[in-house]
C-alpha cells in the first residue's frame, strides 16, 4: 500500500520537479561541471584545456586543433577543438530524486535533499567526464587514445554506457532508498525483506 502510494505520488510530482529542474537551467549542473573540470584536468591534463558552463551546456576546450585535415596539438594547428555537452543528460537525475524524496514521508527532508544533491553532483560529474571521454574519442580519435593516462576505447565506451545510460536513473533510487531509513515505507520494505529472507 505504501509502495503504491510512493509510486503514484512520484509520478504526480514528476511534472513539478522536472519543470523546476528545467526552469533552473544550469543551476543544478553548476557544481557537477566544476567537479568535472577538476577531474578532467587531472585525468587528461594534456588533452583538456578547460571546461565550463555555457547555459545548460558544458563547454570543453581541448589542446588539439586541426590543420589541413590533420589533428595536431593546438599550438601547431593554431586553433582549438571545443565540445559542447548537454548537462541535462545527467542532471535530470536531480528531478527524479526530488520526486522520489518528496513522495516519501521522511523526516528532515530538506537536509536529506541537500545531502542527496551532494552525492548526485559527484555522480553527475563522473557522468559528464564519461561523455567528455566518449566525445573526445570520437572527435580526436587516435591522438587522444595515444595520450598518457587515457584508457582503451572499450573502457571509455563501457564507462559512458554505465555512467550516462544507467547511473542518472539508478543513482537517485540508491540515494533515496538509503535515506528512506526510519520512514514507514522503509519499515514495510524491511518487514518484506525479513519475511522473504526468513523463508528463503
Amino acid at each position: 500500500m505504501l509502495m503504491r502510494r510512493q509510486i503514484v505520488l512520484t509520478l504526480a510530482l514528476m511534472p513539478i520537479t522536472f519543470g523546476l529542474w528545467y526552469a533552473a537551467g544550469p543551476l543544478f549542473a553548476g557544481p557537477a561541471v566544476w567537479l568535472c573540470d577538476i577531474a578532467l584536468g587531472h585525468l587528461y591534463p594534456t588533452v583538456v584545456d578547460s571546461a565550463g558552463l555555457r547555459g545548460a551546456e558544458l563547454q570543453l576546450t581541448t589542446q588539439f586543433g586541426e590543420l589541413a585535415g590533420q589533428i595536431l596539438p593546438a599550438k601547431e594547428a593554431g586553433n582549438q577543438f571545443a565540445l559542447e555537452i548537454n548537462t541535462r543528460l545527467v542532471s535530470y537525475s536531480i528531478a527524479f530524486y526530488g520526486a522520489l524524496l518528496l513522495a516519501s514521508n521522511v523526516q528532515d527532508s530538506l537536509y536529506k535533499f541537500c545531502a542527496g544533491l551532494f552525492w548526485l553532483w559527484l555522480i553527475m560529474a563522473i557522468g559528464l567526464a564519461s561523455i567528455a571521454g566518449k566525445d573526445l574519442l570520437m572527435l580526436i580519435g587516435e591522438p587522444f587514445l595515444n595520450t598518457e593516462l587515457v584508457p582503451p576505447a572499450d573502457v571509455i565506451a563501457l564507462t559512458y554506457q554505465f555512467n550516462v545510460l544507467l547511473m542518472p536513473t539508478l543513482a537517485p533510487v540508491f540515494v533515496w532508498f538509503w535515506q528512506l531509513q526510519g520512514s514507514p515505507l522503509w519499515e514495510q520494505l524491511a518487514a518484506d525483506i525479513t519475511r522473504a529472507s526468513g523463508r528463503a
Partner: protein
Amino acid sequence: MLRFLLLFIGVLITLFSVEMLNPVQHAVIQPFTGLLASLSTALILPFDQDVIAQGRVLRDGTSGFAVSIESGCNGVEAAIVLVAGIAAFPAALIQKCVAIVAGFLFVQALNIVRIISLFYLGQWNYTVFEWFHLYLWPVLIMLDVLVVFAIYLNWLGKNAPAAETI
C-alpha cells in the same frame, strides 16, 4: 543489506560488461533489438499501415520519419538492473528464475510502449520527443523496475514456500 548491495553491484557490473562484448552484441543484443522493432511494427500495423521495420529502424512510409533503436533504448540495461536486484536477494533458484522471466517481460512490455510512443511523438513534435526520449522515459522505465522489484519482495514474503537459498 551490505551483502545485498555488494552482490547487486557485482552482478550489475558483470552483466553490463558482458552485454558490451562484441560477440554478445552481435549474437544477442542486436537481433533482440531488431525483434523489438519488428514487434513494435506488428503492434502498430493494425492501426497504421504506413509503418515499416528495417532491422532496428522503425520508419513511417509517408513522412519518412524514422527511429533507430540503439543500445540504451532496448530496455536491456533496465532488465540488467532488475536481474542484478533479483540475483542479489536471497531466494530459491526457481523463484529467482520466475521473477527474472516475468520481470523481463514486464520491463520489455513498457519498453515497447516507449518505442511506439516515441515514434509518434517524434512525428508530432521533436522537442517533446527529445524530452521524453532523453529525460522522462528512462525515469519511467526505472520506476517500472522499482515496482517489479517491490512486487517480487512482496510475493517472496507472502507466497514463497521454504526452499534452499542460492
